[in-house]
């Protein structure tokens, strides 16, 4: 039983990590706390839902569509709106992101109504047993994909010229400009990647959990908690933070009931902040 709870937590934690990866990237590189992150996850989830319902595209395959569409949306938002205020106080970008979130949520409510939807794939309930632990296939695949996407991002950031420019820009803005980096373009790419990751997380979320236009708020909160727990400025941070939250939540809800889910995530946040103010792996600025 304990092993089952642990495995459940790890599987969900991988998804949490992917959810937070985009938020952590945007935060670390651009110093923007993207409150609209959960709303972007929600859009990704609905893209998958719509593609599945109207064209029958397998939700796992729709990962390609949700992430590329979200990349374009994120790139455009950054180019068109956020770059205008990029040197402004963090407060201004916060309000702007808040405005974007309200806009997206209301648009989604108008288009989809408040109804809760589900992506009903035929293999949704299949599972297998190992060492007395039941593992649903969809959760395992979602977990593996989340980890794979994280690894791909790692290689992009460390092995490509654009990835190097993103890291350089986050470490020393003037130094990057004096190397010939066009910062507004790098910021647009970074924001695009961040929202693409949100879109991918939304797709995996939609395969496992029900969706509604207002789901974004709590997902922003979870991504925020995971980002803080893992620590800014490293790519492993969100993975560790996600697994930590997943496991703690899994045991916590098992002992105290699901009504305490948010309380549990906040408790772990507070505990981590007391003992490791910069997160488990964090080394970034305060």
């Amino acid at each position, binding site marked *: 039983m304990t092993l089952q709870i642990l495995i459940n937590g790890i599987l969900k934690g991988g998804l949490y990590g992917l959810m937070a990866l985009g938020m952590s990237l945007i935060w670390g590189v651009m110093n923007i706390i993207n409150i609209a992150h959960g709303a972007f996850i929600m859009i990704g989830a609905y893209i998958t839902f719509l593609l599945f319902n109207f064209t029958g595209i397998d939700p796992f395959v729709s990962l390609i569509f949700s992430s590329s569409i979200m990349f374009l949306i994120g790139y455009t938002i950054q180019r068109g709106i956020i770059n205008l205020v990029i040197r402004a106080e963090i407060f201004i970008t916060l309000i702007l992101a808040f405005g974007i979130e309200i806009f997206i949520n209301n648009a989604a409510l108008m288009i989809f109504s408040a109804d809760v939807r589900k992506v009903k794939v035929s293999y949704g309930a299949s599972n297998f047993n190992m060492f007395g632990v039941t593992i649903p296939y969809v959760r395992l695949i979602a977990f593996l994909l989340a980890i794979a996407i994280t690894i791909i991002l790692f290689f992009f950031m460390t092995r490509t010229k654009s990835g190097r420019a993103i*890291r350089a820009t986050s470490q020393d803005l003037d130094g*990057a*400009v004096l190397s010939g980096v066009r910062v507004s373009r790098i910021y647009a790419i970074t924001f695009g990647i961040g929202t693409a990751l949100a879109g991918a997380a939304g797709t995996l979320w939609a395969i496992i959990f029900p969706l509604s236009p207002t789901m974004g708020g709590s997902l922003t909160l979870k991504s925020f908690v995971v980002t803080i727990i893992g620590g800014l400025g490293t790519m492993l941070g969100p993975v560790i933070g996600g697994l930590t939250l997943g496991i703690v939540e899994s045991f916590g809800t098992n002992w105290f009931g699901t009504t305490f889910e948010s309380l549990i995530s906040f408790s772990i946040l507070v505990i981590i902040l007391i003992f490791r103010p910069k997160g488990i792996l964090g080394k970034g600025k305060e």
Partner: protein
Amino acid sequence: MAFLEIENLNSGYGDVNVLSDISLSIEKGEIIALVGSNGAGKSTLLKTISGLLTPTSGKIIFNGKDITGISPDKIIRDKIIHIPEGRKLFSDMSIEENLLMGAYSRKDKSIMKDLDNTYLLFPILEERRKQKAGSLSGGEQQMLALGKGLMGDPDLLLIDEMSLGLAPVIVDDLISIIKDLNASGKTIFIVEQDVRLALENSNFAYILDTGSITLKGKSEELIKNPDIKKAYLGM
């Protein structure tokens, strides 16, 4: 017309004007020095040449082309490279990654050849190529900053406060490298608080005082000038 020609330049930060009516020219193949005390506006001038700051009026002409107010990435592609005060390296990235960032705006085929050349010039950087830039000593970081600048394949190199905080032996090493680079055809504009060092190692110099050029001349003559001796050389 000179290689770099600056005419009646005014520049500063927001509403604060720092440089008033600066005019200077740099001939190809020379080492030119800009000296002056703390807060005179030396770094402000370099930042304006490299496009970090936009001048409020005046002209900057490089190689016959008006580059006033164009963006830093274009100025870099015109082959002006600015090595800033405080070096502005990427401290969490490896030495090699820093050097490659120096070649960021280049598209030609000889980047890897230039990386080898940079390593020949600074063997210590090759030894530590996988190490993080932040782990280097001050002198090594300045070598890296110089190497990173060279990776941009500059025609004109602007170097701000290269000697600041470094031991004299290391400064000597760096100066002799600068002279070699100059001998191989690069034009170099050095900015220094260390007036003696700058005058001893340049062909021509400008003295900047609270945003204005107060004196200019051949370095060998300026170093004998009684006013300069008194004001800057402590004699």
